C-alpha cells in the first residue's frame, strides 16, 4: 500500500468518525434540567433518569443548569435550533407561553390527555398555550410541581420579644403590625434586626409573587378568567393604590431591611437565615429546607411556617400558585423518545420521588400525591402548605391566562411601582397610573 493511500484511508476514517459523531449523539436523549436548591432533588432526578435508561436501553445526556444561567442557555438554543430534547427550568418556564406562541415547542396533548385526571385544573391550564402559527391552543408543557408563597418566622425571636406563638394575630392589619412591634422590642434589647422580610426589588421574582397576594387581599384583579385586562374597571385603580400603599408602608416604617429594594430572590432567604429578619415571605419551603439535616433544632422548633392571615374583609384570600412545567422543543431530534421520557417521569411513582426529594419545598401537581401523609401531616412546615393548597382557594399567576403577562413579570412592573414609591418618592396613585399605562401598552402590543 502506497504512502499516499495510507494517508487517504486515515483521512477517510477520521472524516467518517466526525460524520458519525452527531448521529451517535442523536441516539442520546438530551435533557436540560433545573439545578435544585436542594441537592437531594438533583440526585432523585438522576435516579429517575437511570430507571428510564434501564427500562428503554437508551441513554440520557443530562445537564443541570443553575437558575440564573438557564434562560440564556435556552434562548441561545432556540436561536441556534440546537435544542435539548426535554427542558425544565424554574425561571425558563415563566416564558413557556411565549415559546409556545412562537411555535418553538412540541404539542404534547397525546402525552397529557390520557393522564389528565391525575392533575388539578390549575396545573392543566398552565400547560395550555396559544400557538400563533397554527392559531390554536394546545398543550405545550407538562406540569411537574407547584408552590405558593409561605410565611416563616423565628419562634425563639418572637419569644425573646416577650410574645408567644399564639399571640400572632390572624387578621390582616394586626398581623402585619405585629412584626413591627416585635422589631421594636428586640431593638430595645440592642439587637440589629428587622421585623419583616418583604422583597421590593425589580430583580426578585419574589416581589411580584408577594404583591399579588396584597392585590388578592384587597380583592383586586387586573385580568379576568379569560385573560381580559380589567384596569379600566373603576374599582381596579383604587384597589391597586390601596394594595401598593399597604405593601410599601412596612418599608417606609423601617420594619424591612433597607436592602430589600435591591434584593435578588436569594436575599430574603439569606437575611432570614442570618436572623436579620424575624418573619419573611418566601415562595417554596426552601427556607426551612435549608436547615433540614443540618440544624434540626432550627427546623423543628425555632422556625415556624404560618398560614396566611384573613384578608382585610375578614375572609380568606385566594392564594396564588406557581406551577413549574417542562417542555419538549419543536426542534428536538428525538421527539418520540422525548415523549416517552416525559410519560415516564409523569408516572406518580417517579414524579413523587422527584418532588418529595425537595423536602417538600414544592407541592405535588398530582391530586392523589398531595394527600400523601408526607405532605399532609408528617411535617409541620409541609402541613401548613398542605392546608394552604387544600383549605384555601388557589389561582395560578396571570401568565397562565394571558401570555403578555410574561412581560409584565419579566419587566417586574409591580417591583418598578414599588421603586417609584420608595426610591423616587412618587405617590402610590402616580405609580399605579404608570403601572396601568405600561400594562395596557404590553397587552395591546
Amino acid at each position, binding site marked *: 500500500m502506497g504512502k499516499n493511500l495510507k494517508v487517504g484511508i486515515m483521512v477517510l476514517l477520521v472524516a467518517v468518525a466526525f460524520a458519525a459523531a452527531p448521529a451517535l449523539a442523536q441516539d442520546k436523549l438530551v435533557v436540560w434540567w433545573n439545578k435544585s436548591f436542594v441537592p437531594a432533588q438533583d440526585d432523585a432526578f438522576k435516579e429517575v433518569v437511570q430507571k428510564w435508561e434501564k427500562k428503554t436501553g437508551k441513554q440520557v445526556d443530562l445537564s443541570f443548569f443553575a437558575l440564573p444561567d438557564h434562560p440564556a442557555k435556552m434562548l441561545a438554543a432556540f436561536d441556534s435550533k440546537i435544542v435539548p430534547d426535554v427542558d425544565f427550568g424554574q425561571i425558563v418556564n415563566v416564558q413557556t407561553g411565549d415559546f409556545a406562541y412562537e411555535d418553538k415547542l412540541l404539542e404534547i396533548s397525546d402525552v397529557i390527555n390520557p393522564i389528565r385526571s391525575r392533575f388539578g385544573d390549575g396545573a392543566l391550564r398552565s400547560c395550555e398555550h396559544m400557538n400563533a402559527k397554527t392559531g390554536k391552543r394546545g398543550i405545550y408543557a407538562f406540569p411537574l410541581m407547584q408552590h405558593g408563597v409561605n410565611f416563616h418566622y423565628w419562634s425563639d425571636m418572637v419569644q425573646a420579644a416577650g410574645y408567644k406563638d399564639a399571640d400572632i394575630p390572624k387578621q390582616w392589619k394586626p398581623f402585619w403590625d405585629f412584626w413591627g412591634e416585635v422589631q421594636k422590642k428586640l431593638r430595645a434589647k440592642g439587637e440589629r434586626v428587622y421585623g419583616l422580610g418583604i422583597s421590593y426589588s425589580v430583580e426578585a421574582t419574589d416581589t411580584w409573587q408577594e404583591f399579588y397576594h396584597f392585590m388578592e387581599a384587597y380583592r383586586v384583579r387586573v385580568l379576568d378568567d379569560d385573560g381580559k385586562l380589567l384596569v379600566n374597571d373603576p374599582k381596579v385603580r383604587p384597589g391597586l393604590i390601596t394594595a401598593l400603599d399597604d405593601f410599601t408602608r412596612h418599608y417606609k416604617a423601617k420594619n424591612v431591611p433597607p436592602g430589600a429594594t*435591591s434584593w435578588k430572590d436569594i436575599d430574603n432567604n439569606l*437575611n432570614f437565615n442570618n436572623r436579620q429578619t424575624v418573619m419573611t415571605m418566601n415562595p417554596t419551603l426552601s427556607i426551612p429546607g435549608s436547615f433540614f439535616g443540618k440544624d434540626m433544632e432550627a427546623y423543628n422548633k425555632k422556625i415556624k411556617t404560618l398560614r396566611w392571615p384573613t384578608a382585610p374583609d375578614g375572609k380568606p384570600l385566594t392564594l396564588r400558585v406557581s406551577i413549574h412545567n417542562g417542555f419538549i422543543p419543536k426542534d428536538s431530534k428525538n421527539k418520540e423518545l422525548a415523549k416517552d421520557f416525559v410519560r415516564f417521569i409523569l408516572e406518580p411513582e417517579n414524579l413523587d420521588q422527584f418532588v418529595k426529594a425537595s423536602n417538600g419545598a414544592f407541592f405535588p401537581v398530582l391530586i392523589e400525591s398531595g394527600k400523601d401523609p408526607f405532605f399532609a401531616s408528617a411535617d409541620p412546615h409541609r402541613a401548613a402548605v398542605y392546608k394552604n393548597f387544600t383549605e384555601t382557594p388557589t389561582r395560578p399567576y396571570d401568565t397562565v391566562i394571558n401570555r403578555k403577562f410574561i412581560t409584565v413579570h419579566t419587566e417586574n412592573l409591580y417591583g418598578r411601582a414599588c421603586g417609584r414609591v420608595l426610591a423616587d418618592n412618587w405617590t402610590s396613585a402616580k405609580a399605579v397610573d404608570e403601572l396601568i399605562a405600561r400594562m395596557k401598552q404590553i397587552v395591546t402590543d
Partner: protein
Amino acid sequence: MARSLSVSPPLTPSGRVHKDSAWGVILVTPYVVVFVCIVVYPILYGIVLGSHAESYRKLFSDPIYLRSAWNTLVFLLVAVNLKLLLALFLSGFFYNTERWIRWVSIIFLLPWAAPSLPSIFSIRWMFNSEWGLINTVLFRLFGIDGPLWLVKPDLAFGLVIATHIWKNLPFWTIILLAGRMAIPKDHYEAADVDGATRIQVFRFITFPALKNLYITSTLLSTIWSVGDFNSVYLLTGGGPFDATHVLSTLGIRYAFSIGDIPTGVATVITALPLVIPIVLILIRRLGKGE
C-alpha cells in the same frame, strides 16, 4: 520609479503559482477561517439581530435606557479619568526603588490579579447595608445603622465606579510606570543640577514624556470600560430599581432576563457612536506612532 500594484501571486515561468505563495495561502487560511468564524460572523449576526427598528423604538421609550446611557457616560468620564490620573501619580510612587515599596507594589497588584467574581462579591458583602462588615462595625461601635451603600442609587453607582477603579488601577499604574522607566535618567540628573523643583520636573520632563502614552491609555481604557460588565453586574446587578445599569448590563437584562435578544443587541449597538470615534482616533494615533 512606478510601483507595481499587482496583488496576484507571483508566477513561475511555466505560469504556475509560485511554491512560496502557495504556502503563504495555506498558512494564512486557518487564520482567515478563524477570523471569519469568531470575528466577522458574530459581528454581522449581531448587526442583523440589532437591525429591527421596533427594538430601537422600544428602547428609546424605556426610561431605564436613558438613565443607563447617562450612567455609561458618567462612568466613562469619571471612572476612566480618575483611574488614569491616580495611576499617573501612583506610578511615580512605585518608581521609587526602596524595598518596602516593592512589597507594597505586590499587594497593590492583587486586586487586578484576583478574579472578578470573588473579589467584587466580597465588596458587595462588605457593603451590604444590613449584615455587611462595614455597617456591622458601625453598629457595634456607635450604635448606628450606617449608610445605605447599595440601596441609595447615587451611593451605589459611586461604589460601582470605586470598584472599577480599585480593580483596574494596578494595570494602568504598571503601564505608566513602564513609561516612566523609559525616560532617560540623565534628564532628571540635569534637572537636579539646575535646581528644578519636583513640580517642575513633573511638568517639564515626566509629563511631556508620558503624554502620548497617557492619552493612548485613556482612549484604550475608555473602549474597554464601555464593556465593563462585571463591576456593575456583580456589585449592584443594575439595582436598586434599575438605577445603576450601564448599557452593557442593560443589554444583558433585555436579552436574557426579559428574553428579548434583538433589543438586548440594539442596546449595545447604541454605544457604538461613542466607541467607534475613539477607536478611529486610537488607530490614527497608533498609525502615526504617537
